[in-house]
């Protein structure tokens, strides 16, 4: 969702880009004519559309479209973008590139809605992103010379959502769609909430500009709603206090329509359900390539679950999945061979762009070359290699219980004791940090970070296997199945699956950051569950204090090998701050909670015979 921000803040991506961009910018000017136009929708609303048309008119070209809420600029016929399209190779292949401001954003008319709900029966005046895309394609085919009658659409993050939204009721000319890190369900797993827990850190800064009310059309949204200068987000958000304080006159002050909606809709109600595009991905008959990153802090859920929804609801569709070792949008960067302590051993973004993305569009839009990608092309972390599967997850997977146990053990055997649990006190005044150190913005490496900073805390419990005697590969979704009690009436549960490197380094152990990797606790996958939603996202339920409840939820898929000599570790905690807002640990509408509502809670994690907490792991058979 925040892909633009990411590009602006990650200088290393920018530098990789800028080299490429320098060459690309000159190429665009030399080979493309820019056209700025407004396309009128059936309800009279005009959408601002920028079109780059190849100067060479000896052949016909397909359209490659991106629809965006982040501006189609630079605006004006003479002002060329520094880069266009998904990658430079495709620019050189020559397409008619189309960038459109979506309804109600920047230079387009109409009213913008957060993740515009799809309207199944639109009637005369009804409009949504599907109809806007349909009508745009229709206009393009009829009005732009030298087109070959085919169109593709792609986009990363929010534009990924618009790519997905093109699928239901698609224009017959639409022949290839690539939703990349598509915003998909903002209550269950993307951006705004994960399992009903609010992602405070990202959204507070994002909605400060994105959610600003603007009477358009405008070329520039201007300054943010409010200004902050904090350097230490942990301290800032702790001192800010309850979520409601974000609406004070100093901050949002009820000015951001999206922020207002987020705070208003604290359960999986009609607002959120209407925004779940997955339910409409039925009877799709257009080649789709879904792309996502294992380390995408924003829309990992969206990528995996858009793919899965199409598989399930449109089983005959030509639907591919590409998952790489990427942060949000990193597949579009010039070079992605290393990340944090990971060294992938190859340029994974170049592989994607050259071997998958370019071929996908060339084949379906230009009948050029071949597109022989596997059903799922998935990077396996741990061994750091690309894998190809006929299904995702692979069929030869055994769902294996790993039991949380006494003495910090994670084992294949169940506990035989009638009484066995671990306890900790979760204190909203001292929440567990999601990352070590001091940061203003989200530390983009938190999804692969060494968790030793957390395991030293008394409010984090830990379970660990022995050293593995063989490699262990997980492919697919993880289930956390906890038996818990709390002295309060609500609590969050964060489950983290960790790859523990051997304590003792071998002489050839790589030290990617110059530091010892002995005992490094690399986060593989983590997820939060807001406890009151354990049985239903629609109908939250209080915990009965100190009574045992089952809390079962999914962690996003992984493709990871725990190598021989490593250990699996699970950590459980009840805060993840300020990534996630603090749970007052009292059953209450959290956006209404006041400071006094935030209470310490005594949390127990049970592992007795009757209440055996466990993780269910998708173990790949060799």
């Amino acid at each position, binding site marked *: 969702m925040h892909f633009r921000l990411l590009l602006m803040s990650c200088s290393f991506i920018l530098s990789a880009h800028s080299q490429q961009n320098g060459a690309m910018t000159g190429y665009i000017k030399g080979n493309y004519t820019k056209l700025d136009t407004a396309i009128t929708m059936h309800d009279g609303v005009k959408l601002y559309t920028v079109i780059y048309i190849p100067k060479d008119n000896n052949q016909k070209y397909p359209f490659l479209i991106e629809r965006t809420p982040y501006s189609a600029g630079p605006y004006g016929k003479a002002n060329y973008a520094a880069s266009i399209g998904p990658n430079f190779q495709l620019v050189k292949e020559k397409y008619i590139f189309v960038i459109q401001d979506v309804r109600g954003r920047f230079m387009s008319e109409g009213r913008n809605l957060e993740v515009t709900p799809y309207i199944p029966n639109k009637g005369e005046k009804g409009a949504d992103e599907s109809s806007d895309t349909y009508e745009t394609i229709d206009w393009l085919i009829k009005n732009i010379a030298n087109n070959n009658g085919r169109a593709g659409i792609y986009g990363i993050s929010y534009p990924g959502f618009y790519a997905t939204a093109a699928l239901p009721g698609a224009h017959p000319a639409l022949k290839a769609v690539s939703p990349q890190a598509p915003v998909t369900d903002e209550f269950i797993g993307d951006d705004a909430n994960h399992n009903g827990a609010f992602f405070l850190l990202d959204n507070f800064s994002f909605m400060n500009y994105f959610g600003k009310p603007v009477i358009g059309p405008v070329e520039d949204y201007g300054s943010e709603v409010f200004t902050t200068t904090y350097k230490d987000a942990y301290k800032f958000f702790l001192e800010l206090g309850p979520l409601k304080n974000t609406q004070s006159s100093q901050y949002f002050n009820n000015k951001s329509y999206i922020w207002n909606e987020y705070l208003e809709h604290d359960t999986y109600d009609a607002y959120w359900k209407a925004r779940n595009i997955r339910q409409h991905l039925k009877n799709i008959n257009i080649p789709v390539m879904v792309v996502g990153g294992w380390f995408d802090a924003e829309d990992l859920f969206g990528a995996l679950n858009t793919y899965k929804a199409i598989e399930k609801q449109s089983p005959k569709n030509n639907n591919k999945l590409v998952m790489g070792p990427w942060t949000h949008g990193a597949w579009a960067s010039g070079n992605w061979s290393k990340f944090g302590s990971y060294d992938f051993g190859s340029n994974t973004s170049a592989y994607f762009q050259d071997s998958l993305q370019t071929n996908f569009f060339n084949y379906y839009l230009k009948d050029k070359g071949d597109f022989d990608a596997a059903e799922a092309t998935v990077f396996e972390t741990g061994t750091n290699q690309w894998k190809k599967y006929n299904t995702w997850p692979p069929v030869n997977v055994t769902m294996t219980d790993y039991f949380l146990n006494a003495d910090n053990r994670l084992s294949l055997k169940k506990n035989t004791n009638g009484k066995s649990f671990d306890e900790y006190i979760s204190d909203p005044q001292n929440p567990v940090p999601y990352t070590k150190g001091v940061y203003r913005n989200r530390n983009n490496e938190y999804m692969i970070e060494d968790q*030793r900073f957390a395991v030293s805390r008394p409010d984090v419990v830990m379970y660990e296997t022995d050293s593995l005697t063989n490699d262990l590969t997980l492919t697919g979704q993880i289930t956390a199945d906890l038996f818990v009690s709390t002295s309060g009436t609500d609590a969050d549960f964060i489950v983290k699956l960790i790859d523990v490197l051997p304590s*003792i380094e071998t002489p050839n152990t790589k030290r990617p950051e110059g530091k010892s990797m002995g005992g490094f606790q690399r986060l593989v996958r983590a997820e939060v569950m807001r406890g009151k939603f354990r049985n239903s996202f629609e109908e939250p339920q209080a915990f009965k204090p100190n009574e045992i409840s089952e809390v079962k939820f999914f962690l996003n898929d992984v493709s990871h090998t725990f190598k021989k000599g490593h250990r699996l570790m699970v950590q459980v905690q009840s805060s993840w701050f300020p990534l996630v807002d603090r749970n007052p640990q009292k059953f209450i509408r959290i956006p209404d909670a006041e400071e006094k509502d935030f209470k310490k*809670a005594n949390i127990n994690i049970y592992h007795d015979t009757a209440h055996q907490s466990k993780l269910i792991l998708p173990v790949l058979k060799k």
Partner: protein
Amino acid sequence: MRYLLTIILFITCVNNLQAQNTDSAWFVNNYTKMEKLIPMRDGVKLFTAIYIPKDVSEKHPILMTRTPYSCAPYGANNFLQIWKSYAFAYAKENYILVEQDVRGRYMSEGEFVDVRPFIKNKTGKQFDEASDTYDAIDWLVKNIAANNNKVGVFGISYPGFYSTEAALSGHPSLKAVSPQAPVTNWFIGDDFHHKGAFFAMDGFSFYPTFGKPHPKPTMDYGKGFTTPVKDNYKFYLQAGAVKNLARLIGDSIKFWHELYQHPNYDEWWKARDARVGLYNVKPAMLWVGGLFDAEDCWGAWNAYKACETQSPATNSKIVMGPWYHGQWTKEGEYLGNASFGSKTGEWYQQNIEVPFFNYHLKAKGDLSKLQEATIFFSGKNEWKTFGTWPPKDIETKDFYLSSGGRAVFKLLTPIAMTDTPKTLGDKINTIADKISTVFNPDKTSFNYTEYISDPAHPVPYTEDVHEQRTREYMTDDQRFAERRTDVITFKTDLLNEDVTLAGPVIADLKASISSTDADFVVKLIDVFPADFKYDSTYKTNGLNYPMGGYEMLVRGEILRGKFRNSFEVPEPFTPGKISAVKFELPDVAHTFKKGHAIMVQIQSSWFPLADRNPQKFIDIYKADDKDFQKANIRIYHDAVNQSKLIMPVLK
């Protein structure tokens, strides 16, 4: 203690500089080296390396260091690479430079005894380090040609201890001594214990090598024990009770086992306090130390103070700078993320130490400007001089810890506790409440801040993963600790004016614990403004650390709770009963600037810097893993039981 390691690294790492080649040639061409076995009064011979200037135009003074870390390089043709150190200045002044292996170390004969006790009235062939120094000086002034019969001694860390002992030798030729970061008391404040808490990590990284037997003179003790686990928090946590550490290194390390036999401040330890002989000190003394010395900060302050009190007629001065252990031999511009704005080490070398020896040993220059105390104040980053230390013009102010994490210099109206902690639902708290009610029936009037100290999750002394104890922890950002549930924090409002502390800080806590023993770590912290940045002229470590809101450790100290009333006779806590826990933090010299805030953090572990307290009244050296238990700790701040710090505020 580990200063030798620094020197070795220094020597092997720096090379290829043209100036040094020139200087090395100059040293080799202008000095001759001699190695002698100097006989002591009991016949034991001490190995001594003597570098003599070829210049015979005048007589030269002798400058000596006595060391347990070897006077290597051995061999008359192998020269100490002094040109790589500021001490090259002494060669340029044509000092006769002497290094001696102390009794029982390296190439010297005899038996080594750690921090060998001083014998007050020696008779006959009785010896100690003072008499060994006497005998060495006596031989040197009588046998080395062209000496001017004036001797100086200096040394850092363990050699600082030998410098203190040298000052007690009473040899008439000894004119000037500079003990620097002198090891002074290993139970109360230096190296291996602070206020009775065992600094197991420093000890365990030192003794397995240093403590090896020495059956005969040797140039090499061989390799010591190294831990394969490069994460010291994990290593020491997995090792468990400290008795397990003793098992890991076997029984060959004599001192390690002696230390385990003396859990309290008994006669054995008292005999090893370097201050016992500091009476009637004859030579001029220059005490030097680092405000942020993780090893012997306490020793520098307190050996100086003992000399002032016990030997008031002595010409004794002190210099304390913003330094890690031995950093005054370097540039000294920054330590960790804290920066000091100037080359404090070079300033000291050129303006204090070299002039001190030149004046006393060569009658050269003028020392009239050297004040009693030359102290660097971090925060404001300036040198100040004083006629006494602590300064006369300090006002002792109570610094009250209060509810809601507040701290103030004046007493607030006590706020009655309104929110009883019943919601915790924690077994320990419930028990603690019950006990507390028995001992403190008028419970509702109590006001406290509490935490649970869990030996299975001790508070780290530093945020990052390390193999070795860092020296930077003394100025580290404490935000990582503030975020924990087992660290409590008290903070002032932003200061309206500068507050300068000059002298020792007293922690005066009123605490109750749910068990029978606990450690108390008190950390005094300078909270930088949210937009703080160092001036662009400041040299920093270059790590671009976020300094806005930085919580700089200014001083931290630990007390093993059972020693709160006496280091000799430990006393258990009565569970739930409020006790006074009062102890002194080593002297502070720091200005909290206007716009900053003063913060105090309290916690009950500091791991693995200090070993874990099992939180059970027991001889911890004999404790088993099963003895370690959680404890609920309460720090009271109400009208009757007001925890506070007593601060030396400079007027």
